[in-house]
């Protein structure tokens, strides 16, 4: 009885832990294995070495996808955080109808990326959306055709992604700002600090953990981004806005290249790890040091 009492928490956790271990880490290992095989239509289990990785990196389309991933991730994170912080600070000024405004900015988060992508596809389409609207108003030379211009279409994905996610980042930062002790701000003001330097020198540096959550959430959103790309540009025009997640699905289920798709999935996995793991490690270590 005593044994049961002591081990009950572990027993309760065990099934979900087991399921997690198998379905997340088990399948990561499975994917690693498959990426070393010649699997095409269905998985096969004879090892073939690193050839799938060589094939992957010899494909121009993969290079396009990787380049786009870096453009998208960087701009997506930078703009989401900048806009998020700005909105949060503005809302933090004890303004009227804050609850109402906060809901408006947060609302895009309630939409799925498919809806966001479809709506923005219509707005950005030169013969339906902004460009036509402005031209109908009389600005005949107005052009905004990024969506259909190879090389620019990736930026339309950034626009839609930032529109959707910056409200959420605002909410995170707003919560962070609210948790800052009022006394500190008052003390700074008495010392003669301007509002801007109160924020830049005192409050934002205090919000490191909030930055960490925001960045971790945004990085994985960016690397996983699939539905937004599919709904907005479907990787086009041509293959110019292709992303690794789109590439992987195409290879696995459209082109019967399961081995190659696994190799690209592992490359994505390593990319996420390379960015997130050191960041998490340094942040968590810092917290340990503080204790």
């Amino acid at each position: 009885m005593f044994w049961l009492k002591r081990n009950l928490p572990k027993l309760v956790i065990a099934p979900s832990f087991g399921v997690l271990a198998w379905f997340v880490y088990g399948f990561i290992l499975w994917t690693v294995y498959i990426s070393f095989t010649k699997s095409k239509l269905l998985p096969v289990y004879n090892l073939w070495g690193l050839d799938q990785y060589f094939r992957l990196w010899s494909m121009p389309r993969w290079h396009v996808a990787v380049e786009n991933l870096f453009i998208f991730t960087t701009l997506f994170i930078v703009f989401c955080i900048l806009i998020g912080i700005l909105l949060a600070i503005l809302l933090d000024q004890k303004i009227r109808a804050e609850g109402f405004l906060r809901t408006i900015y947060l609302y895009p988060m309630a939409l799925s990326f498919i809806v966001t992508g479809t709506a923005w596809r219509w707005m950005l389409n030169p013969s339906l959306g902004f460009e036509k609207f402005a031209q109908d108003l009389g600005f005949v030379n107005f052009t905004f055709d990024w969506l259909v211009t190879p090389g620019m279409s990736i930026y339309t994905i950034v626009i839609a992604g930032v529109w959707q996610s910056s409200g959420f980042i605002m909410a995170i930062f707003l919560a962070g700002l609210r948790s800052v002790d009022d006394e500190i701000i008052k003390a700074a003001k008495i010392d003669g600090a301007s509002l801007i330097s109160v924020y830049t020198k005192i409050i934002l540096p205090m919000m490191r953990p909030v930055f960490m959550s925001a960045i971790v959430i945004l990085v994985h959103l960016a690397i996983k981004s699939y539905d937004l790309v599919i709904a907005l540009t479907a990787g086009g025009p041509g293959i110019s806005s292709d992303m690794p997640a789109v590439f992987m699905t195409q290879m696995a289920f459209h082109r019967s290249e399961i081995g190659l798709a696994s190799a690209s999935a592992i490359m994505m996995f390593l990319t996420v790890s390379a960015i997130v793991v050191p960041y998490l490690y340094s942040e968590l270590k810092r917290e340990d040091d503080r204790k």
Partner: protein
Amino acid sequence: MRKIIIAILAIVLAPTLSYAGSKAEVLHWWTSGGEAKALQVLKDDFAAKGGVWSDMPVAGGGGDAAMQTLKARIVANDAPAAAQIKGPTIQAYDREGVVAPYNIDAVAKAEGWDKLLSKQVAGHMKCDNGKAYCAAPVNIHRIDWFWANKKVLDSNGIKMPSSWDEFNAAADKLQAKGIIPLAHGSQPWQDATVFEAVALGIGGNKFYKKAFVDADANTLGSSTMVKIFDQMRKLKGYTDAGSPGRDWNVATGMVMEGKAAFQLMGDWAKGEFAAAGLKPDVDYYCAATPSDNGYLYNVDSFIFFKIKGQDKVEGQKLLASLMMGKNFQKVFNMYKGSIPARLDVPMDDFDKCAKKSNADLNTAAKKGGLLPSFAHGMTLELGVKGAIQDVVTEHFNSNMSSQDAVKKLSAAVKAAS
């Protein structure tokens, strides 16, 4: 406790006891309008013969979602009775060992499918190096069609083009008048659809076969291929700025409204005209794209997997027989816009375009122009097909030169095969 165990056993075993007859689980992605109606005919036939049909529709992504489901089921050793698979992918599944022992071959031999199907179509349906039937065809789609707005063409004195130069001249004339010559949705598969029709027209039948059936490196890198890409660049100029990413049926709508003159699309486009109440030769024209009696076909078919249980095998046999049945082949294809794969179905009730398709098919078969569409997965391994499609769509949507495109094409095909 014992009662509980008995109850559980009863629940688990119940399904295996209750169906003694034939049973079939069918994976498909025909969920929209006419296709769904057409499939209902098959379901009713199946039920009338005492079969139990369990539907497994996986909508979305032109079959991508269905492929994910199918692969997961096969890997789990739980393949459905039949799945909507076509072209060389049928034989690819056979090579993975999930199709033998070819349950429907006996039906096919008994019903004499060899006589009911053209040799070319039959070839696509056979596994085991052409020895046994393992799939049943339901239709023949033609890809290389031009659809045109009659009013726009007539009022500008333009006839359906019989050569690509003629088309270019007509397009220049229309463009000068502010009409979009070519309604096109620049999605990779649509770009490839246009590309293969142009390749068939400019390169000719033998060239097409060498390039897209045999994937011959010299042909893919030839100067004829440069000319084909030149024509693609011209066609790009005939499309409007909103073209990238547009769905094909939206492009068809542009032709119906008279905003655009032509669309190059397979005969499923006819369904859009029919749904809007428009008639061939009254409201719109249908004609083959310029070529030397060429005919690019896409045959939709169902593959029948290896499966356990006598009732399920019976279900497969019944299903295969019904799919090849005259009634289904006729009704289904009238809904779908295609023509029957089976040769002895009377064409009287079909519309003019379908009759033309049927007549052209016979001519093309005699003159060596009956060729499989690569853009729709009837020839080439999927990886090679994808590699070609990537280059075609990249060229069409950028200012890449034709020479560079040809170089990229050869390299991509080499890397993928």
